[in-house]
């Protein structure tokens, strides 16, 4: 029973991503790209993380902007045309950490 309790369970479904800008697999116009992620519950904007993954695998942690709502995460970046993945890690106010990825392109 102790081993059971120590088994990891994916908490990926708790602070559920309801919608995002850009949406998954969308193409947006650069170079200024604004990111907004909307969740189903309150998230801690100061302690959540948005990371940009470039096509070559290089990563860049984005500086978080002021939250536009209690359930939103906001950031922005200047990007050249190409394929990117936005990797998010959201801390809910109840202490759960959830993660996800949003692939998108910049034209």
């Amino acid at each position: 029973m102790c081993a059971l309790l120590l088994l990891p369970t994916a908490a990926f479904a708790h602070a559920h991503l309801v919608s995002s800008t850009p949406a998954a697999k969308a193409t947006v116009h650069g170079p200024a790209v604004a990111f907004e992620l909307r969740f189903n519950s309150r998230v801690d904007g100061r302690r959540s993380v948005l990371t940009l993954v470039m096509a070559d695998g290089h990563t860049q942690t984005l500086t978080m902007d002021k939250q536009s709502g209690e359930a939103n995460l906001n950031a922005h970046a200047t990007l050249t045309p190409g394929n990117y993945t936005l990797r998010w890690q959201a801390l809910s106010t109840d202490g759960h950490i959830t993660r996800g990825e949003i692939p998108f392109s910049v034209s």
Partner: protein
Amino acid sequence: MRALSFALEALSFGGVFFLLFAARPAQLRPEPQMRLRRIASRFALALAITQFVLIATTSAMLIGGSGMGSGKGLLDLLSAAYFISGTAFAIASLALFLLLRLVSRLAPSLLALLIALAASVSLSHAASRMDHRPLLLILTAAHHLGMSAWLGALPFLLVALKLNSDAETSRQMAKRFSAMAVASVTILVFAGAGLSWFYAGSWQGMYGTSYGLLLSAKIVLTALMLTLGAGNYFLLRRVNVNLAPILARLRRFSEAEIGLGITVILAAASLTAQSPSVDETPQDTITGRQVIERMEWRWPGFHTPALAELAPPTPLSVAVREATYTGGSASDANDRAWSEYNHHWAGLIVLAAGALAFVSRLPRQRWAGYWPLLFLCLAIFILLRADPECWPLGPRPFWASFTAPDVLEHRACAVLVAAFALFEWGVQTGRLHWPRARFIFPVLCVAGGALLLTHTHALGEGNGEVYAELSHTPIALLGAVAGCGRWLELRFDGSTGSGRESGPSRMAAWTWPACLILIGLLLLNYRES
């Protein structure tokens, strides 16, 4: 860790409630009361330690993901809502431990309990909801209190009955506990119904999402516990003077209640990590018609694709990252066929084991007592075929592949099944003389059911996860019932296990082979496409 936290919270709070509303009013002697206080205090200490570990784990994940380990970042970490609530929870639990040990009055312990409860509720789903937050917080607090005063206090009743020799005191304690249980169950059920209303949102939310299916399983398990509890309640009402004739029956049914309660707590912990049904999108939900189509009987074909026809395995680091960020990769038709073939063979093995278990109870059919060895074959089958991308069928190394959560769970399951097979074979054939070995079967059944309820399937986006839960949830429930049935059979059967069977023992004896057969049929009907 969340499940451990819930269990320790229920036990430490339950100890206080039992002392306050049952033991003291029944005038239990000071020495047993002190024993109960010490037991409750140990649970409170363990709860405090668990909270510190949870805070440390979450903080480590945040530091690892965002580099918040120093300077302003560290201040940000220390001022996070989870950190403050978790610390308050830990400190209040520590205070409860000290007060139970050092202060004879229970009022200060009750105050520490209420502060710990408030901190616990501030770490629940309710605290992060956008709408109806105050009401959800109140309902969550009531739900926690109800669970603690019923399930958390139940072990203390069993201990108190064992420690106490005065018949009238035992009767008073049992009756007062019974009254407390009725009140707490009422609060638990109404609060739970309210939470289900907000989190499930609709009937489809109860059967069409992973959250809903897990919630439904929790409700079924609670109903089973209530049935056992109701039996004890009516038994107590019939006894006016002496508890002794019914004491054994009271204890046995309470033990089974506790076993089911542990599974409920694990299900509750798993629910905290799931998104409520009201937040799911249509592509993550299935309809009633889809449920019926999926549950319709279809004869299994027992055809497996070749290993080379499966999707090529990705490197382990990619698989772990996928499981972390996306919930796993979606499976193609060959992957699904492979999985279905595995489940069908597992079903055949379990069905055969259940049938032989029935036969072994008939006169002159002792040869059928070797049925547990079929589970050894199942364990080897799981080890070889559950994860074809890993050793021995795939390129991922055996030890390194433990980092993938679903691989770890499959192998834990294989170990559980193998352990069960060997111990139960020893018990059934009389080779194992250790008296407690008989109880490994029911404990592992309940453990297996709980593991299945909290199992992640890593099937990526969409409703694949829901379809998998649709099969696994009833199997998990049957596993828990089988475990309780076998436990009751053994406990009512006398100390040697070979004496004359009592009525409840006979009834329980037929329950678990029937559950095995039903599990076998569910596995034979398993489909992913």
